[in-house]
């Protein structure tokens, strides 16, 4: 598609406006971003307020949040840009995002929520499609791709020892403090009844209970079953004799049917053609 051709009307799915963007001036065919006003209300403390948020689909992987904010800066002041893999409700800002310990997965095409300061920005963004294709990578802010991107990624993967050490030490100090607090609290509440008069049974103390796990549960049930089986008399009454014999025959019959089916299956599948 040469740039001098009259622009073909790009069809977008209903409700969306298509916005043409190009990676750089040299590229010939543009890519389409799909934008829509974000209408879903997410409740109080909403990071994506419905009047001021633009929902963008089909964001290519080479488009970073900075590039998006620069792109939409011409429509109005941008408050924040939130890029994520799938559309979903906004999350509260996390307490501590560690540089080293987040799970980073490779990025593909993503979804973005662009929050403007004023609602007029959203309308202006929808009207952007009338103008020509916008550029993501310009001279002032070039985006790295290909070999340079991979070399940059390799350079980033080499961590600084001191930084890592400092972070790990800080985390472990917090963690140890937290564990100590929990233990102190548990020791204080030992044997003290709560408001309804119940005392919690823990592993420590004079009467330690069982660990609260599925395996321990199963063990206890197994033991109960064995004790019950010991006390039951299975061959005492005449009706018990009859019942056991009837069940035995029914089980044999069932097994026979199963075996017959299995052999029929095997026979049907067998292809005796050695050569």
């Amino acid at each position: 598609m040469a740039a001098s051709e009259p622009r073909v009307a790009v069809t977008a799915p209903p409700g969306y406006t298509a916005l043409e963007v190009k990676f750089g001036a040299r590229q010939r065919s543009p890519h389409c971003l799909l934008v829509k006003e974000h209408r879903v209300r997410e409740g109080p403390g909403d990071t994506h307020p419905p009047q001021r948020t633009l929902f963008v689909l089909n964001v290519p992987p080479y488009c970073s949040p900075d590039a998006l904010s620069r792109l939409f800066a011409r429509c109005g002041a941008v408050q924040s840009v939130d890029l994520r893999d799938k559309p979903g409700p906004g999350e509260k800002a996390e307490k501590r995002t560690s540089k080293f310990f987040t799970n980073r997965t490779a990025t593909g095409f993503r979804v973005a929520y662009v929050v403007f300061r004023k609602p007029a920005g959203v309308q202006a963004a929808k009207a952007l499609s009338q103008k020509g294709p916008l550029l993501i990578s310009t001279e002032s802010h070039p985006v790295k791709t290909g070999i340079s991107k991979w070399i940059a990624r390799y350079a980033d993967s080499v961590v600084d020892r001191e930084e890592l050490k400092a972070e790990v030490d800080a985390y472990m100090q917090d963690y140890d403090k937290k564990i100590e607090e929990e233990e102190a609290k548990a020791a204080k509440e030992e044997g003290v009844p709560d408001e309804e008069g119940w005392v919690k049974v823990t592993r420590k103390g004079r009467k330690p209970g069982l660990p609260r796990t599925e395996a321990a549960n199963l063990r206890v049930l197994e033991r109960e079953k064995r004790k019950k089986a010991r006390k039951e008399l299975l061959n005492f009454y005449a009706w018990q004799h009859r019942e056991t014999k009837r069940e035995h025959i029914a089980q044999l019959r069932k097994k026979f049917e199963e075996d017959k089916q299995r052999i029929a299956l095997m026979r049907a599948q067998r292809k005796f053609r050695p050569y």
Partner: protein
Amino acid sequence: MLLSHLHFLSSVSTDFPGMKDGLALLKVWLNQRQLSKGLGCFSGFLVSMLVAYLVMKRKIVKVMSGYQVLRNVLQFLATTDLSMTGISLAKDTDTCLPTLDDFHHAFEVVFVDPSGLVNLCADMTASKYHQVQFEAKYSMEILDDRMVDGFQALLMTSKPMLRTFDHVFHLKHVSKLQSACKKMQLLNELMDRGGNYVAAALPFIVSLLTRGLARRALLVAHSLPETPEWPVDTEPPKHKDVGSLMFGILFVPEFAASTLEKGPQADRPEAADFRTFWGEKSELRRFQDGSICEAVVWEASTICQKRLIPEQIVRHLLKLHADIPESSICYTGALLESVIKNGKEALGTGEEDMVSVVCSYDDLSRKLWNLEGLPLTVTAVQGVHPALRYTDVFPPIPMKPIYSFHKQVKTRHLLLPSEEKPCPAYITPLKIICHMEGSGQWPQDKEAIKRIKAAFHLQLAELLQQQHQLICRPAVTHTDVYKDGYVFRLQVAYHREPLILKEVVTPEGMLKYQDTEESQQLELETLHQPYLTSSLHGSPQVGFLRFLNLLATYDWRNSPLIVNLNAGLTDADCTEIKNKFVAARSRLPVMFIATPKDKWNSIWTQERPSAQILQRLLVLASESVRALEEQLMDPLSSQDVKIVFRPPLDLYDVLIHLNSNQIPRHLERVDRPVKSFSRGVVKNSAGAKILFPVVDYDPVQCYLQDLRVIGLTRSVDSEALFH
């Protein structure tokens, strides 16, 4: 005489319904092993007479079923030796009939017919009979083994010579056997055979080779010459029109590649025999125990050359004793190894490199065990990379980076690949797992465990640098160590971590264990992968052919593949695995592999291959087997085995061509490229006080990963395959 045989057989088979079934089974068994057609074959007629003999001797009773007939015949073949003590169907009453000893003087294998005058095995060579015996013995073992499906193994799998024997070679010009007869003075035998020099010379050639390969070979066998059919009105074909003769050798693994043939002591009379047998190759040598013996020493430096010593022996002996020139022999023992030869000299197949990697790894693991100053000791060190279990295709070689080729970031002591130059050589990190001792000091929270592991990586790097002067580069999930020109990647593992990852607290407050994706991934890496140790028996070419055959012919849909590593599974386990497999087939993955540590889940094949890929794999495997066998069986063809390794490119929609100076493993292509680039490393050398080289940087893989992720997020309905 044919009529009398027919009457005899029909009299035996009356009232014996099992005989027909048994004979059918035996004929299939023989046919699968290519033993029943050609001159001197163990034909169906011979088997029928054998059954009649066993009925006569009351080893087979007329009420037996077909399976029992099969078993008894195989048992008989496995335990008796007709070349030593022949058998006879004639009754012993007539004294003017020739005795068994007379027959033994004239023939190699003796089985006399009811008339007492004809040896039914007249044309059979001893080597063919020994092959039948060997197969019968092996088949009896399979029938007794309850874990293997005997029916499938004995009767449904074909065993052509290419897949049975370790080395196979062809004698292309059969007419050379004429001169062989003259050289070995076989004129009497030639007369006996009516001028058929092929049949006359064959037994002597085989016995010559058997003597030459005495300690090394379990079995030396030959193909049976078959005269082609001809129309009635033309001349019958000449003796040399039987085509080429194929010989197969099955090796004893311990001695097959030894470079020394030790003969008797020099002063003994047997020494003269030895010298005449081996010709000018035999020399007098002095050994460490002081004795002076005749010996033959073969030249071979690398392991793959040592595997070809039998080829040297075969060629030398045939030239010396039978006047068969080297050009007539086409040896196919090592044709496939040209694919994995690396380097311009192409001397070795990488096995020596793997041995040196393992030596370096052993040294490192000893250093790790004795490291002082760690809060917890290292309990076990296990290698996970393929090179450490001898299965890497192109194992790493020691390398040292050239600084001028890279971009240096002085402030961080970092070497980066430079954008203008070709990309640096690929240095693969050799992954090693260090298991730390479990103690009460480990936290029980998964985030905390990750931090502790990172702290361990940092400390390992520091200690190794202090105590052993090894350059290390720690990271969050691993520590890279540069030692002897290799880069080892150490990962710390805590054995309770997968368990902690699996913890789920139910709403009632109870602790349950549930497999999560993260925990399964961790288990795979730290527990299961290190246990994969493999040992290949037999020669690599045969192994490859058998592997392809297994892939192509195994019934993946209806039966699980049970791999009994280190004999960890009992018979009861096997039947249980099979039953559970049949009951839950639709929920299990398409390809199911069970091992002693992983009986129900087949963790290796959970995600991949998908059904389409498996189908493609099977088709590819069967075509490859066919193509390879065609190439190897025909001694006059070009024997280009690389066609199997070149993928067909016409079924892809889009082909992306890459710039070869950015492909670090360019030289590992199937067809060695003409141009190669200098990649900024000095091979086979290791530096001590240098900057850390560029590790695990492969632009091709980066590109592929980006493409795959885009393919995943973009097209949901069309699966884009990127290779």
